[in-house]
């Protein structure tokens, strides 16, 4: 796409979006139909440059000229619509308009994924579009700067999710398995990943390019912490492939891609290739496509002699809106895993072996359960575990195996044939070593957790042994152990003396605590206890690191 075409597209978009009577057009050309745009307009006016876009905020005439000469300062406007997030005006405006026009009938998941995929593909293969996008992001960074709170919270959330997708390996996982790109699920969700397949480095190039653009364009970016830089890049990356301004389609697509890549091995891919005709029919149907695709794969396994890949994946869960069999959890276990289902906590694949009537009185709210000795009556927890790597199944895995109900009705022998086994969480035995609380697991002599509480509400974990329990149960051990001790880290949870290699590497890379393995585990445990992590900190104490999580309800 040439610049002329871009401009032409802009003109068309402008014509198509002639402001309504309630809209206002500022001197700077900002279509204003909402508070966010009004704030932007006010800021532009404050700078006194009525001809400038947000790109030019805070720049001298010479700097603007220099930016223009380098192609970085073409005018790019922010358009606001009350019904949607602030979007970048240009070719993608048409996409967004199209979505707005059909908003009365909410697009189903398949449509969202398709939109995402088509837009992503077009952008990846369209350098002019990329430049336009970058310029839009630069504008956005400037626009956000100096207290202009434009779309801030929404952007933050999008950035977090996008950055997580990059960090947790979703993207890398998918790129590392090119065979999976040909499977029917990718056909079902679109072709954007195919574009990436043709240039596996596209994503990196985009990030790199965007990073350079951001650095060159905005001095403030250089002053950000590494984490915040990552957030900005992740945010921009996400919006690059997600023109809707919504995280839903993108995150779902990445996760769908990840699950397929993780759970379908080469044999599976080959078998699926042989059924492309059937799968294309599947893809041509709208509505329930994602769920059907998963079901298709699950059902194809025995027919195609496929088996789930044994390599572990990032462990993402599908979005809650994806139609799928939900575990039959009673109130008790919902308390245990209310956050886990969406977040990949130990409770993801958790089945409560007990009955609702066995609940203790305090169990209806995890946080409140502690006062009443609520741990006593807790029913045993059952997980399904992949024998190959001794890792509990999370909800997406369970879906691939036909759903929880199916697993519950599967005999031990049949489970074994599928490489699975049931795992009942052992009884936790609480004790005290004179200075601290201890937690052991019946039948697992190596499992041991030690915690101190010198100040009410501040719990310090000093030791964590647990390697004989299945992977994924660590947060459960932590939360249940504290629950059994009737201890709640209501103000702080501290992991003390952390010197393990993965954490040290995270720390030295400048990762945020919450992205570290221990940070994630602790977060899930806190959520299981009904607490919210408010602040994460690394603390260097003596010759070790402490992970300090300030908590609240």
């Amino acid at each position, binding site marked *: 796409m040439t610049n002329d075409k871009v401009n032409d597209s802009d003109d068309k978009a402008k014509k198509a979006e002639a402001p309504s009577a309630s809209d206002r057009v500022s001197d700077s050309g900002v279509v204003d139909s909402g508070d966010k745009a009004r704030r932007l307009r006010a800021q532009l006016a404050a700078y006194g440059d009525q001809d400038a876009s947000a790109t030019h905020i805070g720049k001298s005439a010479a700097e603007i000229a220099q930016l223009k000469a380098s192609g970085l300062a073409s005018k790019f406007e922010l358009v606001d619509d009350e019904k949607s997030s602030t979007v970048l005006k240009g070719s993608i405006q048409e996409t967004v308009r199209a979505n707005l026009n059909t908003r009365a009938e909410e697009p189903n998941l398949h449509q969202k994924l398709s939109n995402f995929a088509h837009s992503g593909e077009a952008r990846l293969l369209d350098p002019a579009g990329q430049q336009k996008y970058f310029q839009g992001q630069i504008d956005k960074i400037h626009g956000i700067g100096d207290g202009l709170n434009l779309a801030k919270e929404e952007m933050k959330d999008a950035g977090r999710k996008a950055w997580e997708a990059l960090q947790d390996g979703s993207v890398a996982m998918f790129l590392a398995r090119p065979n999976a790109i040909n499977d029917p699920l990718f056909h079902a969700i679109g072709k954007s990943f195919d574009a990436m397949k043709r240039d596996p480095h596209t994503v990196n190039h985009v990030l790199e390019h965007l990073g350079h653009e951001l650095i060159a364009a905005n001095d403030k970016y250089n002053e950000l912490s590494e984490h915040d830089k990552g957030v900005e890049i992740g945010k921009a990356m996400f919006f690059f492939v997600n023109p809707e301004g919504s995280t839903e389609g993108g995150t779902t697509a990445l996760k769908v891609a990840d699950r397929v890549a993780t759970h379908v091995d080469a044999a599976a891919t080959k078998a699926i290739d042989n059924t492309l005709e059937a799968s294309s029919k599947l893809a041509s149907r709208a509505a329930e496509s994602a769920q059907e695709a998963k079901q298709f794969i699950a059902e194809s396994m025995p027919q195609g002699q496929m088996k789930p890949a044994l390599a572990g994946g990032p462990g993402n869960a599908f979005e809650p809106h994806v139609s799928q069999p939900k575990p039959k959890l009673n109130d008790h276990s919902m308390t245990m895993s209310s956050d886990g289902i969406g977040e990949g906590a130990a409770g993801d694949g958790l089945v409560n072996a007990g009955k609702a009537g066995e609940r203790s009185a305090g169990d209806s709210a995890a946080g409140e359960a502690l006062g009443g000795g609520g741990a006593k009556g807790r029913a045993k927890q059952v997980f399904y575990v992949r024998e190959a790597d001794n890792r509990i199944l999370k909800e997406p895995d369970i879906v691939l195996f036909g759903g929880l109900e199916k697993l519950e009705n599967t005999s031990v022998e049949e489970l074994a044939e599928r490489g699975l086994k049931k795992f009942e969480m052992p009884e936790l035995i609480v004790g005290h070593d*004179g200075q601290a609380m201890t937690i052991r697991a019946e039948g697992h002599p190596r499992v041991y957790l030690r915690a101190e509480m010198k100040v009410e509400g501040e719990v310090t974990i000093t030791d964590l042994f647990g390697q004989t329990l299945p992977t994924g149960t660590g947060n459960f051990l932590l939360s249940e152990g504290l629950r059994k001790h009737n201890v709640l880290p209501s103000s702080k949870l501290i992991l003390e*003396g952390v010197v393990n290699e993965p954490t040290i590497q995270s720390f030295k890379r400048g990762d945020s605590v919450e992205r570290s393995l221990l940070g994630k585990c602790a977060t899930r445990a806190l959520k299981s206890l009904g607490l919210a992590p408010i602040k994460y900190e690394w603390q260097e104490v*003596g010759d070790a690191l402490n992970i300090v999580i300030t908590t609240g309800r």
Partner: protein
Amino acid sequence: MEAGFNDQDLELIKSLKYDPSLEPNFEALKGCLIWDDERPMGLSSEAYRTVSSLLVARSLLHKGLTLDDHPINADYCKKVWASAQQQISDWPGFRRLTLSDKDRKYLNDEIAASFREDL
């Protein structure tokens, strides 16, 4: 620099008996091996942290490194080590500065596994 042991801590540590038949266990926070005869119950918090420092320092030796390779604070680590060697020279942990092949494999396997996606 004193290693942070009070009289009771010293008594507790000196009461420890080295047991060569014990198997090590891998502690996930510190990423090191620990044997059951190396930490008595009832240590003060400060002493407990000091012993933890010693365990981490020793794990460097187990990995074929030196105390100078401590990832956070090598000076602190060396001072604690030197002080402890004077104060609690009979600590059983000092008798396990090298690993058997079996224990080395166990340590390496656990470290490799610690890079997994979840605990």
